């Protein structure tokens, strides 16, 4: 159904797979690239696997993996998101206007995920290049094994932030309950303030970059420690 310049899908009546068949058929340069999905009612994998520039607005709450593996699409979730929102996204933008459950942006390789509310545990777990901006706080084990990209937390962070961290960078404005193994606070130099400023500007979240602290890997777990006692 076409209304006001966008095409609307109602998940109360339509099968998710047929909605996806339509969304997955969108190609670069198509004229019709504006969509709205209503009545998601916590369904899983809504708007997953999108593969071209398009705008998708979802009015309501979604279940697991909304926007999973997204490429190039702009997705706005006008509600709360279940676990794994934007998991393994490659590019594009996903915005959650409410809160997100655990593993938000897990293994994301590119693009930006904005969570205007709070995110639960394991936000940015194994992230591989994605930028995540959280307007509120994140739960425990966030950025666990984070490899690349940035996690920006405007509120507080739970226990074991950045456990077993590789090269992802973390910025937190509020308090951190505890740092995970091999995660340390690092100096916030002017170039980091610039990076953070850019991330906040892209996300549309309003915060003063100077109020944040930076965390990264101590790189002590990068190589197995092998002694050589017998050589003594």
């Amino acid at each position, binding site marked *: 159904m076409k209304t006001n310049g966008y095409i609307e899908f109602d998940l109360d009546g339509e099968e998710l797979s047929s909605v996806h068949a339509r969304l997955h058929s969108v190609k670069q340069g198509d004229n019709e690239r504006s969509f709205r999905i209503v009545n998601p009612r916590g369904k899983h*994998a809504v708007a997953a*696997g999108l593969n071209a520039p398009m705008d998708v607005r979802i009015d309501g709450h979604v279940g697991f993996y909304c926007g999973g593996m997204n490429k190039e699409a702009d997705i706005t979730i006008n509600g709360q998101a279940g676990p794994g929102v934007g*998991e*393994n996204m490659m590019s594009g933008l996903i915005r959650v206007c409410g809160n997100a459950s655990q593993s938000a942006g897990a*293994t994301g390789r590119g693009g930006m995920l904005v969570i205007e509310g709070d995110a639960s545990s394991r936000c940015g777990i194994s992230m591989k*290049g994605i930028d995540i901006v959280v307007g509120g706080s994140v739960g425990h084990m966030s950025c666990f094994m984070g490899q690349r990209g940035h996690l920006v937390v405007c509120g507080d962070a739970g226990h074991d932030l950045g456990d077993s961290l590789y090269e992802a960078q973390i910025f937190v404005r509020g308090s951190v309950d505890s740092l995970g193994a091999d995660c340390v606070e690092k100096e916030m130099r002017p170039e980091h303030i610039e990076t953070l400023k850019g991330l906040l500007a892209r996300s549309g979240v309003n915060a003063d970059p100077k109020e944040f602290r930076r965390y990264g890997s101590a790189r002590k777990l990068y190589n197995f420690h092998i002694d050589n*006692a017998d050589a003594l």
Partner: protein
Amino acid sequence: MTDPRALRGSATFPPEVIREIQRAADQGVYEIRGFGTKRKIPSFDDLLMLGASVSRYPLEGYREACDTSVMIGTRFAKKPIELKIPITVAGMSFGALGSHAKRSLGWAATEMGTSTTTGDGGMTDEEREASKTLVYQVLPSRYGMNPDDLRRADAIEVVVGQGAKPGGGGMLLGQKINERVAKMRDLPQGIDQRSASRHPDWTGPDDLEIKIHEIREITGWEKPIYVKVGATRTRFDTALAVKAGADAVVVDGMQGGTAATQDVFIEHVGIPTLPAVRQAVEALQELDMHRKVQLIVSGGIRSGADVAKALAMGADAVSIGSAAMVALGCNKPVYHEDYEALGTAPGFCHHCHTGRCPVGVTTQDPELEKRLPPEKGGRLMRNYLQTMVLELQTLARACGKSHVLNLEPQDMVALTVEAAAMAQVPLAGTDWVPGKNNY
């Protein structure tokens, strides 16, 4: 000179145990190695096939056909895959294997009409081009995970665990992480890299069901989705994979190999392939899903006889990893000095983790890789697969079967009480199945 009769070795402390304790005392860290378990465990060697006799008649070797084709993914996938032979190539990562080995496997599998599988680290263009039917693994690490590769795969395998290390994550030592491998995995070069042991965005069977649903939505419900588990609580794992919506279940017994894992894991975790197949088949039968959800078995499959016995126990297909590497030259008695430089010898090598594979299979070093030209590797692998198929057909015909999937447990007996108990076939020359018949 000491009288050799006065030297009494200890069963508790044989030389290899003394060596390991002293190595641990020196280094302060567990031993990491490649290959699979080295201890002796009950296996398909402990079963024998019952050829036809008066009560059954065999098929003629050249005149009567013995079909080997199987369909995988008939439960939900719009495009199930047809394998011309029930022997597939297991997931081995680019990173653990070099690109020549990957291309060799792909070419041979394509020639024989079967599939190959990616591994931890993503899909390379070379292996996609070399393999007509390619299974793409979704692993806990998600290294190189890319929706474009999901879409260009022919089937998708969600890896929960592997036989060499059920419950353990991956390892790739720094010496194998060159620039290309590092880039594919989004990691710094040269670090000793550990992969996660749990998936980052799901835990438990209910979540797995949702994950499978997501993958199906992304790929338009076209592709078969497998769930791979390391053999431990196989009956439950198989049932839960079916419940989660898998098209096929891959069960990897403890003989399954690895490129790099703690020795303590390889030797002490998991159950052998033999009892695992039986448990998986029973779980499928209880759910009325046998032959509807296909069972692919791996871990220590080396010959057509192993394949025949796995199928007779109820598997739909098998998968080979270590044996494929051996076909490509692993542990071949050549380049002795290079084995020696690793502190080993042909026949004993398990040094895949070093990246210095003497025969160019598990290395990223271009000089070592030259020892395995892909054309030669492809022919070696094709010939090996062809031989296994001929052996399999020989045994199936001897049992009077016009299709290899018609082999059944009644075509076998066990040589040992252990194997009889694990496979639930009678001890040879008796009608005794331990645990059954009031025994």
